[in-house]
């Protein structure tokens, strides 16, 4: 490989290497480690939690809003269901939907950003203005417009949140790629007659992994808040399913009597989003360090 295109090998180190450098650097910061610990905690809770739930999340277990007892360690919720069991079951939907939505937003955003940066034509202008139009709405308003028309469907939630994530990802991707598309190895690939798709995703994409990692963690934090928020408003996961956002909505009327039904999910979402944003901050500091010449080009 080095024998064929030495220039390309110098300009763009093999796939994975800049990423490993970034991750290793980010890991050195205490805040990244704290972030990883927090996220792992909440993910473990969401994934393994249901196996330890003493009751079914939907069965009637006690008097509504009854206080904590030996049978119901965190008391009962607004309909008399076990708060602990619902809490243990309620993380999967938040995490799963947010991950799906972020992945979708990344896929769309990266594709649009790459095409815009590489096109060097009016297409660039058109695509980025289209992104601006989506950005003219606060994400939650766009999501609410969609829910008002179609109804509260989970696939719609993923679609809309992904859709509102895409423009920001597209901007970052385009910004980072603009300089890459002018490099020698891209021209070399063009001269070799590689397909457009291969140039975009095989040549340019690997060179912008650092800014994309930072953006991905930011967008994930944001998607978690948006998805949980929509469930909290009553337009996401529907009853009687157990979901942290929905639980807060169901139990907030009883805050004065029995706060755990709302407080536990609030704590879990807070820990999760603080964790992901600490990781994002660690990554972005490491990426800035690399840009300033700390890493090898």
């Amino acid at each position, binding site marked *: 490989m080095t024998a064929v295109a030495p220039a390309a090998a110098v300009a763009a180190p093999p796939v994975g290497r800049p990423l490993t450098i970034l991750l290793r650097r980010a890991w050195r910061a205490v805040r990244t480690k704290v972030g990883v610990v927090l996220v792992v905690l909440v993910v473990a809770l969401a994934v393994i939690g249901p196996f330890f739930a003493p009751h079914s999340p939907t069965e009637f277990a006690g008097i509504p809003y009854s206080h904590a007892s030996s049978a119901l360690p965190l008391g009962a919720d607004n309909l008399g269901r076990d708060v602990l069991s619902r809490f243990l079951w309620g993380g999967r939907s938040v995490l799963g939907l947010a991950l799906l939505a972020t992945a979708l937003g990344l896929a769309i955003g990266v594709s649009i950003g790459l095409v815009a940066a590489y096109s060097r034509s009016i297409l660039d202008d058109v695509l980025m203005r289209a992104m601006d139009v989506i950005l003219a*709405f606060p994400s939650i*308003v766009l999501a609410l417009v969609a829910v*008002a*028309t*179609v109804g509260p469907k989970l696939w719609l939630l993923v679609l809309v949140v992904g859709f509102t994530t895409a423009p920001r990802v597209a901007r970052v991707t385009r910004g980072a790629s603009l300089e890459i598309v002018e490099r020698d190895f891209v021209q070399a690939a063009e001269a070799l007659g590689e397909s457009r798709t291969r140039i975009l995703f095989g040549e340019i994409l690997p060179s912008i992994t650092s800014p994309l990692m930072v953006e991905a963690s930011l967008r994930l934090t944001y998607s978690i808040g948006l998805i*949980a*928020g929509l469930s909290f*408003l009553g337009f996401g996961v529907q009853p009687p399913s157990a979901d942290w956002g929905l639980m807060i909505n169901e139990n907030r009327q009883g805050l004065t009597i029995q706060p755990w039904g709302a407080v536990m999910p609030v704590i879990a979402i807070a820990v999760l989003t603080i964790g992901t944003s600490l990781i994002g901050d660690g990554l972005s500091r490491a990426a800035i360090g690399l840009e300033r010449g700390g890493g090898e080009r």
Partner: protein
Amino acid sequence: MSTAIRFVRRGISGFVLRRVLLGLLTLLLVSVIVFAATQALPSDPARAILGRTATPESLAALRKQLNLTGSIPGQYAHWLKGFVTGDFGNSLAARGEPVTQVLGKRLENSAFLVLIAGEVSIPLSILLGVLAARRRDGPFDHTSSLLMLALAALPEFVVGIALVVLFGTTVFHWLPAVSLIPPEDTPFQHLKALILPVATLVLAVSPYIARIMRASMVEVLESDFVEMARLKGMPERHVLWRHAVPNAVAPAIQVIALNLAYLAGGIVVVEFVFGYPGIGSALVDAVANRDLPVVQALAILIAGVYVALNLMADVATILVSPRLRTSLR
């Protein structure tokens, strides 16, 4: 900026004019999206609202009321014309009242909430940013940067519920947990009820402004003219507030306006948390009742505020930064 409207003349007024045109174009496209999403979908909104058991007569009546008869471009033109002339149609839920009547009072309430939140958060976060930059890498800088990072990560409803639990219902009982304001009153008469929603909004936007202000201040404090001011023996307080801060605010203006625009979206969740009678809770109710005319009006209204604030941010940034101003001449 955009090739399509490059013919407009150069200079500051030309720049402003171009940005206004671009803003109007964005709004037009926004209206197409809202229209397409709420009206031109393959599914029948009238049936979606009334359900499977609806009679053909009631379906036809609702279709007429929703302006669903005729060609799609015709529907759009009719709808847009009504919109521009201030006729937003009639609400489907509130006994068929005109949308403007349903929303008028709520619009005032929301504007009041956003204004107070802006007035508290902007000076507060500028102060925090300046203090952090002054003793860069000191204990205050580190603590505030971590705190801001954590606050920026939290969704508003999480902050809102946490504040309710802390100060309203469970730990302390100082403040009302809900901000219900009777329709005949103004928010002025219920200032105590506003504290928690305003605090939630302030906590949601301040981290971003404080962070950009700190970064901008750090840069300005390292510049030659600050060095110069210090060398000629000017008191440090003077250097900070008379020389450094005004220059550091310019880059922050865009972020400030963006965050005020963000407040327009943030109020949706915050008003719902506190039961505050503004356009945010109106939007949530309208979505729950599938009151499409109200949803359309609010979506475009909020997008309009958003676009306008972004526009002002761009213009203000140009006006306050001498380098950009001269480059446009």
